[in-house]
């Protein structure tokens, strides 16, 4: 039997409080896994225009739902995730289901195995709804640079945003002004945000889970490096990649992390020590906490709205008795350029395997093996990927290695040590912005190239990847435009549970509003009758 019964909660779209308990509902037969699955499939169809999914695995999901239903009927549910629809970013290998990385290079590639994290979710009875959209090979911060096109932020269609726009603008073409989700796990964020599933896997190399979570009003967790297996995650930067978790509330993230965390014999970088199940206590007293505010994160590019929410959050902790202190991470300013060198170098190496021989795209040219490689890679990769491969190979050249790669590694160590120093001084968590501002319209976003955007957007997030620390973005409030703004908590390595506990307290204080998608969901209301699906939260 589970340690503690956890209950899923349906929340109505209109009100966060009105909810039914999904787990209980499933158990009591008020709703069956198949019905739940069909409801999500129906929303996926309604929200197809968001471009959140690359592949919808309808048949697989329905079959899994059927199995789950049998288990519930027998009273042998596998746990908290049994029968719960989830989505997986399309850079995790899924056995028998196409895995593209949103690249021509892997179009049509069907892996013969499941990523460890996917397998663990399936072993818990979760229903795999499909594979979500991303920037090609997860290289980007907008989810705009994949071969299947950009992902649209569900908040573009929310009542909250539309009402604000009506007040401000006169008569703009609404459809052309949709917002980006952030990235690169934008498909996963949109999928969760638009209620097509309850949780989604993203990947996080420089902020790819936290950034779209912030833009889509979700909880986005990047666990400690080594806590969750990367086996089956198609790598961007092996030394920084971590499977990320996107959910609508902190408890959900904790449940999923509890399932995913632990040693994997197939990933030698995972921790050897056994991981205990994650159970988040409800924190009532924060007076013993010390919250660090890194002064270097107060950059000129930070929007005034985010800045004021950030200080509001700091005040909130302080007013509840926590110690809030300014701290310094002196090497922050070198972080982005250091990240660029290390990231592109590993990218150059990791992308070498895509040569058209064993799998994926192969061009028609067959004059020589070398010509075949060149044409295959030119056709298979977009400009962003090719650009990073070229820079990475430049940094790895014998003549440049010491000056670039080795130096960047040293800087990485300094950045990691900055965090160690701060945490050793008694700070429990760092509180920072996740993004510079709220989500911007697509037309605005593409004015800058991918590299510039990534450098700007990763600014608050990638240091945690370089230091291997757990970090979580929690939605705090809506901006003046009615768009979500999230703040980030960064914790000590392998103190993910403590981090989430504080995040949960914060979440409870700020009462972030639920996205209102009535217009979008109008047709769905009949499906849900009186209980419109909004979000799932887990209450003990």
């Amino acid at each position, binding site marked *: 039997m589970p340690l503690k019964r956890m209950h899923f909660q349906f929340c109505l779209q209109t009100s966060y409080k009105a909810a039914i308990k999904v787990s209980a509902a499933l158990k009591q037969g008020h709703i069956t896994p198949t019905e739940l699955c069909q409801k999500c499939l129906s929303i996926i169809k309604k929200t197809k225009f968001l471009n959140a999914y690359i592949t919808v695995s309808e048949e697989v999901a329905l079959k899994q739902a059927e199995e789950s239903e049998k288990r519930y009927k027998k009273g042998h549910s596998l746990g908290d995730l049994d029968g719960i629809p989830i989505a997986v970013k399309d850079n995790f290998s899924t056995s028998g289901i196409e895995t593209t990385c949103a690249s021509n290079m892997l179009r049509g590639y069907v892996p013969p195995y499941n990523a460890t994290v996917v397998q663990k979710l399936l072993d818990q009875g979760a229903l795999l709804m499909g594979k979500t959209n991303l920037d090609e090979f997860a290289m980007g911060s907008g989810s705009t640079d994949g071969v299947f096109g950009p992902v649209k932020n569900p908040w573009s269609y929310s009542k909250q945003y539309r009402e604000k726009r009506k007040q401000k603008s006169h008569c703009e073409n609404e459809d052309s002004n949709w917002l980006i989700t952030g990235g690169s796990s934008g498909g996963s964020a949109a999928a969760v945000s638009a209620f097509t599933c309850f949780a989604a896997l993203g990947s996080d190399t420089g902020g790819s889970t936290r950034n779209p979570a912030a833009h889509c009003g979700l909880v986005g967790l990047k666990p400690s490096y080594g806590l969750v297996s990367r086996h089956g995650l198609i790598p961007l930067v*092996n030394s920084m990649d971590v499977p990320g978790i996107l959910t609508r509330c902190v408890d959900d993230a904790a449940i999923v992390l509890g399932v995913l965390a632990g040693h994997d014999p197939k990933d*030698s970088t995972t921790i050897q020590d056994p991981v205990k199940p994650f159970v988040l206590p409800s924190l009532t007293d924060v007076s013993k906490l010390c919250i660090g505010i890194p002064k270097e994160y107060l950059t000129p590019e930070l929007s005034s709205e985010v800045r004021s929410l950030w200080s509001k959050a700091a005040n909130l902790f302080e007013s509840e008795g926590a110690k809030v202190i300014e701290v310094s991470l002196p090497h922050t300013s070198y972080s982005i350029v250091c990240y660029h060198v290390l990231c592109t170098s590993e990218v150059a190496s990791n992308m070498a395997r895509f*040569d058209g021989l*064993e799998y994926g795209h192969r061009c028609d040219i067959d004059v020589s093996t070398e010509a075949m490689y060149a044409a295959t890679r030119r056709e298979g990769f977009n400009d962003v990927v090719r650009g990073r491969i070229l820079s990475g190979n430049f940094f790895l050249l014998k003549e440049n290695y010491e000056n670039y790669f080795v130096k960047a590694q040293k800087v990485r160590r300094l950045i990691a040590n900055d965090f160690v120093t701060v945490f050793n001084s008694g700070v429990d968590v760092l509180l920072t912005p996740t993004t510079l501002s709220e989500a911007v319209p697509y037309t605005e976003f593409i004015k800058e190239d991918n590299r510039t955007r990534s450098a700007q957007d990763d600014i608050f997030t990638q240091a945690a990847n370089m230091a291997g620390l757990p970090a979580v973005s929690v939605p705090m409030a809506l901006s003046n435009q009615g768009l979500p703004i999230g703040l980030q908590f960064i914790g000590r390595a392998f103190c993910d549970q403590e981090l989430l506990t504080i995040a949960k307290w914060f979440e409870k204080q700020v009462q972030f509003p639920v996205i209102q998608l009535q217009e979008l969901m109008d047709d769905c209301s009949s499906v849900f009758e009186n209980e419109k699906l909004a979000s799932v939260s887990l209450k003990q």
Partner: protein
Amino acid sequence: MAAPMLRLCCPGRRWALACIDGCSRHRRGAPNGCTSSRRRGQSSVAQQPFITAQKPRKGEHEWAAVVGLEIHAQISSKSKLFSGSQVHFAAPPNSLVSFFDASLPGTLPVLNRRCVEAAVMTGLALNCRINKKSLFDRKHYFYADLPAGYQITQQRLPIAVNGSLVYSFCAGKNRSQVINKTARVKQIQLEQDSGKSLHDDLRSQTLIDLNRAEGQLRVDANISVHHPGEPLGVRTEVKNLNSARFLAKAIDYEIQRQINELENGGEILNETRSFDSKLGCTIPMRDKEGKQDYRFMPEPNLPPLLLYDTESLPAGADPQQVIDIDRIREQLPELPSVTREKLVQQYGMLPEHSFTLLNEVGLLEFFQNVMKETRAEPKKVTSWVLNTLLGFLKQQNLAVSESPVTPSALAELLNLLDRKAISSSAAKQVFEELWRNEGKTPAQIVSEKKLELMQDQEALEQLCHAVMEGHPQVVMDVKKGNPRAINKLIGLVRKATLSRADPTVIKEILEKKLAS
């Protein structure tokens, strides 16, 4: 691994580098008209010639050669270095390929414990310093049989360094002078093997086999020549040598070629060459890219490899999780130099014979098993094992384990010989019969073929008498003082006994009769 070094007789300085491979890259003849060859980039060896005392050669041509070897030896393990796939000789192509071996996206390397232990043991046997912390690196190049586009190796901090191997070779008129030499081992590194390419030139296709489990040894030899006292010459690298014989031939050829080239005013190019075993020469390999930059970088998916000794072993460590160098040291088998020394001491064996016994797989054990069951002199046994048995094996290209003559049978044969039941020539005949492997014991063969020595003194005397009667001229020659004439009589008597009489006994009888 060391065998090739025994054959190196080139003058000058030399150094050795040993690499331990997950599997070797040696390839065999290709089926169906495919030509099997492999074209690869240049060597990954960072050559660091050692400065040692010079021994300039006397004479007009003062040339010194520097030879460095990169030895790729396949580790005898059940599975591959970084994946759970099995290793089998001659398995169908691509039948032993894990997702990792095929470099499917998202797969990660997992280090095989057995391979690490084998590398540590090799390092200990070669007097290396074992690095308690070693690192893995990626070496990048594009090649069809390298599916990941990089090879995982140990470039920066290998598992073992600074070793040495003392070896001996026999010199002098009768190869009776044993000379000791020391080859230095720069490093031992664990390295993933690439696959195998089969080039079908007719159909201009390349077929790839990712099993990577053929052959056991492959050597790349780096060779340069220079005048003693002057800077080292430009080196060439002769790649993919797969036998000690070819290695020696290739090195000898390449040294001579470089000397000739330089003496004729030419220059040596820093290039990779291959050895044509039919023509006995080295030829430049096609290498379009010119000098390769392998863009080494740390392998991020493998944490540093940590080894422990009894002192540093963490308390309560799970023996399955840690590798204890001292425990491996205890498991180290007797090293060949010690075994050879024992053979010389125990049996009074010539040093060169001890080398031959150890150089052939299974031969020492064969010898020792014969020794257990025979009363024959060790020298006699050595001679039979090294000359007769080994000769037969070589002639038919058989391994010791495939010998139709068992140690017991040879021991029995040598016992018959030892108690003079048969003559040496009869013994050879019995051995030939045993070799045919018809299930008969030496005693049975002797009795069936009537090979036992004539023990009947009276009958022998009668035969001698008859021969002397029949050949009065020869008897006269003997009596006139021709010492060789008696041999003719002995031969005639032996012929009459169908070679079953001991010539010394015949000689005794004849001498007695001739004197009377």
